[in-house]
């Protein structure tokens, strides 16, 4: 079964390799070309920088909102995962409109005598935008992990006289490191596969090159896709071997985790968190709100430029449906792989895991085309081409990585001895899994499901190519609006997307992690 899952996820890689052979690409000459190496270096530089900043911010935010007496922390728990749902081109557009030279912020502050803002284009802008919109990949798994840590170790450390910072560093951090690494890896893979933000901010990465060449120089585009996939596989395997060497901390808590009193740091921390979320979430929402308001109040006659709130109902339902179903299916598909790795340290499962995770770094359009390639003429399943089940499969193929890493962390945290104890009491394996292990994995699995759900809700390339005709999502609506210059309608659809993801994240993920 694990092997079958692995083979399923090999699909996109096999497609890229086949295309390279078919087009006769000389991968070596593509790789060693200055025009490939330079973007590749930029991809890696951005990936490492964004991973680093999101790890610091995501971990800090998770600790502050889950484990301290930060004011309004329940509200921050809800808001913190949401920036993930901004399609990166929307986030980048809003940020540019806000901060770029001549933008809204400059208009606001110019009376104060400040008339030049730092240049947002290039590396700095891409790094900032991607940090703002990808840190939830770290935040969610880490928050789920921190919510399920037992208080006893930390209490002991406190009693031995360690201060809060020392306790965090020596007790909390080691117990969450697996989740932190998982999140950082996802951020890295996402960053090297991102197209929307880097292209809008003018930072030339390998993925941007793949998009530029995808139609007219397919041999080179596919060669670079192979390079990107190779880089991703290498990084994933390196992280995995590190993870195997890290001691797995199996912990079970019997009481609610400790709440750390921030003391006089309470208000500075509040200001810091509010300022960060103000930039990552409230700022873009305010700019979108401004555009939407301007459109709703303007008297526009040109076709396609008006606003129509009613037309967003259908896309909203489709978006919710796709997000929820994909989250459940993705968790169900990858759980066996994660379980085999954690329980039996299986090599097959390890290889399957690397495939699942590395696939996330391939640009979405490549994954979508690979599915077309494998499915269109296949018996039986070919009949499902461009239907909802196949679209869900495409999402799972692309976002399986997020579920896998989260599930892996969740499974690894369940003490094996519990399973053994249940066995000596005569429980069968399926029953042991359902009644003992699954409930303990819940927070970690929910975090993974939340990531998959949010990613699916904003997914664009596969949705455009593979959705059943008429299955519009909010993301496709936003894109069409942008394509035809209908700024107000696009902004409106983006706001609906943020609101919908807030509701779903609360109902499906946060409330349950909290009440765990």
């Amino acid at each position: 079964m694990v092997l079958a899952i692995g083979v399923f996820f090999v699909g996109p890689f096999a497609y890229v390799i086949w295309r390279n052979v078919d087009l006769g690409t000389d991968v070596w000459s593509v790789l060693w070309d200055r025009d490939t190496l330079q973007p590749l270096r930029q991809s890696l530089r951005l990936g490492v920088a964004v991973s680093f900043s999101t790890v610091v911010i995501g971990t800090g935010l998770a600790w502050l909102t889950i484990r301290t007496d930060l004011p309004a922390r329940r509200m921050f728990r809800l808001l913190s995962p949401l920036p993930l749902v901004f399609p990166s081109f929307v986030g980048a557009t809003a940020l540019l409109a806000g901060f770029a030279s001549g933008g809204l912020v400059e208009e606001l502050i110019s009376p104060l005598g400040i008339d030049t803002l730092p240049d947002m284009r290039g590396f700095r802008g891409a790094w900032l935008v991607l940090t703002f919109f990808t840190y939830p990949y770290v935040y969610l798994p880490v928050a789920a992990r921190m919510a399920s840590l037992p208080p006893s170790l930390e209490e002991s450390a406190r009693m031995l006289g360690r201060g809060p910072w020392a306790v965090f560093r020596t007790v909390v951090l080691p117990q969450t490191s697996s989740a932190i690494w998982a999140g950082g890896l996802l951020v890295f893979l996402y960053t090297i596969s991102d197209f929307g933000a880097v292209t809008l901010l003018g930072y030339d990465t390998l993925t941007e090159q793949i998009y530029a060449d995808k139609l007219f120089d397919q041999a080179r585009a596919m060669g670079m896709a192979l390079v990107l996939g190779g880089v991703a596989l290498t990084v994933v395997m390196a992280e995995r071997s590190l993870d195997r060497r890290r001691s797995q901390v199996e912990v079970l808590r019997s009481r609610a985790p400790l709440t750390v009193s921030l003391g006089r740091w309470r208000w500075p921390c509040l200001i810091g968190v509010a300022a960060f979320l103000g930039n990552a979430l409230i700022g873009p929402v305010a700019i979108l709100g401004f555009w939407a308001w301007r459109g709703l109040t303007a008297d526009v006659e040109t076709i396609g430029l008006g606003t129509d709130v009613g037309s967003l109902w259908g896309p909203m339902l489709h978006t919710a449906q796709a997000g929820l179903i994909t989250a459940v299916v993705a968790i169900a598909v990858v759980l066996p792989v994660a379980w085999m790795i954690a329980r039996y340290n299986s090599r097959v499962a390890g290889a399957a895991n690397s495939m699942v995770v590395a696939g996330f770094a391939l640009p979405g359009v490549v994954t979508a085309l690979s599915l077309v390639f494998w499915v269109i003429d296949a018996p039986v399943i070919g009949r499902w081409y461009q239907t909802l089940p196949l679209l869900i499969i495409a999402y799972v193929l692309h976002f399986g990585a997020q579920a896998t890493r989260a599930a892996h962390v969740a499974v690894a945290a369940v003490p094996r001895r519990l399973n053994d104890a249940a066995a000596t009491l005569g429980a069968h394996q399926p029953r042991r899994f359902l009644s003992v292990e699954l409930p303990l994995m819940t927070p970690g699995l929910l975090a993974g499901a939340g990531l998959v759900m949010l990613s699916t809700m904003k997914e664009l390339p596969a949705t455009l190519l593979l959705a059943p005709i008429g299955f519009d999502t909010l993301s496709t609506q936003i894109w069409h609006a942008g394509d035809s210059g209908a700024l107000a309608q696009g902004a409106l659809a983006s706001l609906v997307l943020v609101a919908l993801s807030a509701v779903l994240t609360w109902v499906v993920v946060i409330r349950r992690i909290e009440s765990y």
Partner: protein
Amino acid sequence: MLYKPSVPPRLNTMQLPLRIITPLLALSLLAAACGDDSSSDADSSSGTAESITLYSGRSPELIDPLLDAFTEATGITVDARYGDSAELALLIQTEGDSSPADVFISQSPGALGLLAGEDRLQALDRSLVDLVPDGFAASDGTWVGLTGRVRVLVYNDELVDPSDLPASVLDLTDPAYTGRVGVAPTNGSFQDFVTAMRNELGDPATLEWLEAMAGNDSPNYPKNSAIVEAVGRGEVEMGLVNHYYNLRALEADPSLPSVNHFLPADDLGSLVIVTGGAVLNSSDAAVTGQELLSWLLSEEAQVAFAAETQEYPLLPGIDAPTGLPGLTGFAADTIDYDLLGDGLTGTVELIRESGIEQ
């Protein structure tokens, strides 16, 4: 104490979402499995059908009303999939003979040229191709232009003195324009423009122009609308784009200082880029597909394009959009992609080689 397994199994937390989601999932799968037996209602011998599938590189806002009018006039339903022209071309290429699409409408002639080169498009009836003037359709009749967009130089009239505007796109390489002209070198329209330049001036002169633009530190943008936004903000003074983006931006915010500068009609800088339509080789509803294309070239549809999307109609005798110069005399996109030898690969290679992408 540490590992005390005292937590009671809390199945309830997992069961609730599963209880809601499992039936939802099952229902959706069932609906999908039942819903696809309408795969073909075409009469393959006659090439006609009650409904056809369209892949449209043009967004629904800009074509849906016309498709509805077509359905009303003919009783033929159009199932449309909307996307990016280049990505839809890749989809058609990957689908091969099994493609569900009958008709492809592309905003980029390059994407059509690529599919024609791979023998995915069929020759249209002469009577259909002859509706538009020479040069607005493929010479082998594999696609026909529906509307045109003119390349312009958009500028910010608060930052640029109109007397500083060039008389030709070739003049933009002058050091006076250093850092002032935004370009979108990875965008389809720019690529089509460079292809036309290769056709007109040859590869060495084209490379020279691109290198000079690169040497002028022309800022990069991903697409036309981003350039128009940046010019509106005053981030860059001018930019090379298609005419209608600025018209739409002004509609949304009339206070914007961005203005379209039309270069002389015979200049390469005012190239007309067509949105074209084609019928796929694999279609079993080719006759109906051509019916759709010829309807989009009808007077009714062409007048609607001019009035509502502010594009140039290609059917002779229909007026240009209000307030725009007439199309007569503009350099048409007369590229025969096959004659370029290495086709469009050469274009992206030249663009890359020049260093204009930064």
